[in-house]
């Protein structure tokens, strides 16, 4: 805290005032999370206070809302699916972005500028508008033997498979990833690359051994963002997979809501918290990387 105060040049009193202001602004979100946490262990709630059926406060605490963990085998299926989706998306996006970003940053080829402009437009494009056309593409892909819908784990790359959802999401996430990676490569001075070429490395080795390690913070940040995007994605799996309660956690939650019977919000909150936990843990362990993209510059040989 002292360091922060020094760097911002603020006096302690100003610092406390700012912190108070920020606390006030984040209060609605904090209260929201608090409500989720409390309600998952309660039969009902009045505001933030758990009540039992007769409305007596601080009663009616229960683990019943979490019973889906041991009663509904689908939850483990959708958790695994969400994990595969998030990991597949991350690997795909990071790998392709790192290679495309390098090429766009370092190699002059015809159509480079046009490609960059087009990717930017694609990034700005709302993906909802593409849903129907992508549906036809996936239907067509599904007809390819084996690859279409006969692969283990991801099912295939066609309609109503996890692989198909990954494919669509990778292509939707790529424009951002490519631009981010290109920006990181742009920051690395040419001389370092030239030195490596003269030292005896091939172009691929330079990319792999010299440049990638230098943009580690960027790769880490992109991985984390992409992983979370995949873990939380609702629209794409909801659209292209037919059984909501068997596709991903997000659609599983939705399936709890869409039933005609009265909705058990405490249970919805419990599943929501269940989905949130890995992301929270992930954040705690990776926030250092996320911060480093904002504060870290190039060190040595600028």
């Amino acid at each position, binding site marked *: 805290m002292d360091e922060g105060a020094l760097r911002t040049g603020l006096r302690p009193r100003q610092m406390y005032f700012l912190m108070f202001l920020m606390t006030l602004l984040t209060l609605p979100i904090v209260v929201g999370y608090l409500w989720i946490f409390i309600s998952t262990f309660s039969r009902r709630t009045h505001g933030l206070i758990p009540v039992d059926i007769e409305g007596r406060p601080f009663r009616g605490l229960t683990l019943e809302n979490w019973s889906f963990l041991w009663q509904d085998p689908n939850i483990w299926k959708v958790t695994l699916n969400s994990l595969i989706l998030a990991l597949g998306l991350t690997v795909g996006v990071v790998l392709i972005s790192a290679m495309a970003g390098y090429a766009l940053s370092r190699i002059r080829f015809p159509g480079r500028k046009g490609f960059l402009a087009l990717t930017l437009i694609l990034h700005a494009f709302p993906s909802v508008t593409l849903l129907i056309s992508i549906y036809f593409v996936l239907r067509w892909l599904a007809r390819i033997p084996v690859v279409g819908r006969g692969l283990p784990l991801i099912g295939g790359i066609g309609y109503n498979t996890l692989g198909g959802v990954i494919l669509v999401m990778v292509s939707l996430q790529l424009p951002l990833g490519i631009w981010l990676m290109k920006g990181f490569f742009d920051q690395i*001075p040419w*001389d*370092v690359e*030239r*030195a*490596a*070429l*003269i*030292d*005896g*490395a*091939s172009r691929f*080795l330079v990319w792999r051994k*010299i440049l990638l*390690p*230098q943009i*580690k913070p960027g790769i880490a940040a992109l991985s984390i963002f992409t992983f979370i995007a995949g873990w939380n994605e609702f629209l794409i799996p909801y659209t292209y997979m037919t059984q909501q309660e068997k596709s991903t956690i997000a659609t599983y939650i939705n399936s709890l809501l869409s039933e005609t019977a009265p909705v058990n919000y405490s249970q919805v909150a419990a599943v929501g918290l269940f989905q949130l936990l890995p992301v929270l843990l992930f954040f705690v362990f990776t926030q250092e990387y996320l911060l480093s993209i904002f504060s870290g510059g*190039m*060190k*040595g*040989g*600028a």
Partner: protein
Amino acid sequence: MEVHLEHLTKRWGKVVAVDDLNLEIRSGEFVALLGPSGCGKTTTLLMIAGIYKPTSGYIRFDGRVVNKVPPKDRNVGMVFQSYALYPHMTVYENLTFPLKLKKVPEEEQRRKARRIAEMMGIGHLLDRYPAQLSGGQQQRVALGRALIKEPALLLFDEPLSNLDARLRLTMRAEIKRLQMELGITSIYVTHDQVEAMTLADRIAVMREGRLQAFATPEELYERPRTLFVAGFIGNPPMNFTQVEVIQQDGQYLAVNPDMRLAVDPDRGSRAAGRGRVIMGIRPEHITLARDGEPAHLEAEVYLVEPLGRDDLINARVGKETHLHFLADPALKLRIGDRVRLRVDTSRVQFFDPETEQSLLWS
């Protein structure tokens, strides 16, 4: 290794970076490529390294055309202005990176790294990262990395520009010593003529992509073939004045409205009868006349710039001819003082104002 450049040309679209460059570098020679920024010297160096492909012309290593040989197969080492160390590797890993790529056995890597580190005086820094080193130390690591694979050709791209003045002198001496000890053919790009003069066996002066001169430092200093070379080599730079050289009473006189200077007949005769020419006099060839000594010129002190060991005097001769020369600070020359000057007229230079070629040397 001998390096021959034949009609070497590099174009970027319509811009000509290097224009029909011919250069023959002997084995073991230390050659400096000297010129102002943007003259194509670094482009030339990167073509020799294999980073850029020539638009036309040839690069030969020991007679073999290497235009299409990738950098890794050229057996060159290069030191960059920015050091270009790999920031995510320790000094040891930086040094051994070229060896690792050549799949040299680990034991040999360690032995070579230790020897090079010893030679460069960085033995105690092997476990550090580049960001933890000073500029001078980083440059030593970069030099070590270039030397460790025992290249046949060493390339330097303004390696000292990022160092402070004092360190620059030390490193300059060290590079000179290393190159002489190891006898590796070296090409050194710089815009600093002092660096080029002190280090190189021969200097190639470049300007706007063209070779202006390729000669030993003494030759460039004493017998500059173009006005550009004369002005670029030497510190402080040569004085230039427009004069007409006329023959009178068996003497050759350099004349303009401000002065009449009797010049050496050998040199004067070549500039005589050509109308207006440019006369060049180096500041170090102008001295103050002692009492009783006849003076060539009378002048008025216009500006005094103390350089420490000397004062650089800007003196006005007549109305608008200005001459720079060096004077002992103990004389305490002041602005407005009248001075009597002697000129070593056997060392004046003459140039054609149109072609900018020397009238004395061709």
